[in-house]
């Protein structure tokens, strides 16, 4: 049986990092769709406007921490407050270059975040993650 397809959302203010993530995701062959956003606010807007999405697939969301205007923590907080969103459908990872203790601890306490991932994202890490999701 083939593993199920997934929707992907990548939020990172670095164009190159978005590009890398998109490539790696595409290479896994599991992407139904990939959306990347340089601004966390745009991603939030997108999610808000697509609450009626009856997609049968889960959405993997990867968000960076340090970004101007709205950082990763602000984003998760705002996401948690969104109404009419089927949270069950979202699997959220933080993908960051941060090695700061405070950041790591803060991520641990975010109940809606599954795991902290170190940059750069590699095919091996992503494959291992996706193998756990059916």
């Amino acid at each position: 049986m083939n593993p199920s397809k997934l929707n992907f959302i990548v939020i990172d203010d670095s164009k190159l990092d978005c590009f890398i993530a998109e490539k790696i995701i595409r290479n896994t062959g599991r992407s139904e769709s990939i959306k990347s956003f340089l601004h966390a606010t745009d991603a939030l807007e997108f999610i808000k406007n697509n609450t009626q999405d009856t997609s049968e697939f889960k959405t993997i969301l990867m968000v960076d921490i340090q970004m101007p205007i709205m950082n990763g923590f602000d984003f998760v907080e705002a996401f948690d407050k969104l109404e009419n969103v089927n949270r069950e459908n979202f699997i959220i990872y933080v993908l960051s270059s941060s090695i700061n203790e405070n950041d790591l601890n803060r991520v641990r306490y975010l109940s809606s975040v599954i795991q902290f991932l170190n940059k750069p994202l590699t095919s091996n890490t992503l494959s291992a993650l996706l193998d756990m999701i059916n």
Partner: protein
Amino acid sequence: MKGSEKIKILYIDDEVNNLNGFKAAFRMDYNILLAENTVIALELLEKNADIRVIVSDQRMPNQTGVQFFQSILTTFPKPIRILLTGYTDIEAVIDSINMGHIFRYIRKPWNEMDVVSALEEANKFYLAESILNSKNKELQKAYDELDKFAYSVTHDMRGPLLSILGAVDLSKNMEDINEIKYMLSMMEKSVLKLDNFIQSVHEYYNLKRGELHIVNVNFNEIIKDLLDMYEISGKLNAIKFTTTVNQQSTFRSDEMFLRIILNNLLSNSFKYYRKDIDNRFVNLIITVATHEAIICVNDNGIGIPEEHIGEIFKMFYRATNEETGSGFGLYNVSDALSKLNGNIFVDSKLNEGTRFKVVIPSK
């Protein structure tokens, strides 16, 4: 000693004769404030924040000197305390030293030499304490800044490096030469971003540690260098760069600091241009009047959202998602300006442009 320079001493004693005697003996050298009870003493302390030394009698009807000193331990910690007593009451002395933070103890009847020496020592101690206090504050500020610095530096240096690492890893399995070339151009941007950041750190360090080096500044010379520097990036993005210098008189300032200010303002103008218009411009006007230089940098770029204008001079603050910003530039500008006693004014409209006006006095 001039009147204005006399240090303020508060003397508390319930006997009016003692008060008058003390004032008569020391008023030439000190600004003596008198209180015949501790209630008046408190009022005087509240009104005179610059009282450096408090001399108090121990035996007073309502409150002893030690009790008074103890009561003002947290409310007025700064003035140095001296206790006067006619009784060789060793308990009082021990108490006073332990509980009232007493600096000196003078036996009554006092002789002038003892009092003068105690006052002078107290004043020295006061000055040393205030220097220590302000140094500690500076140190705390430096620590706070260092924390912030370390946090952002790891992000701003690791960020581009890890991007490149990710790109290298990805390129290993790429066959399409065009795709590889595209990756290389993206990696180049990351390298430039990192280099730009390191240069800003270098500027930051120069500003923090640098002593002012005041010379006669010729703005025409500086402009020549700036024109060379920005001509290329101007051509690249079709931005018209015009400069006007009107320098009639000599202007004395630190040239490196001026260059840091000009460079950061200009590089922002060249960086944050509007992609949706054709007649892009950056305009630099420098006018040197008798005692000051006025520098104006105008552009018709993306502008700064109103709600962010108050924040743009803070370290690592970035008001835009444009990738190239380090959040260092305008912080360095305001740091340099504070050293040159200059001021900066910003006038900006989103999607219309930004105008920075800098006024720097000649040194």
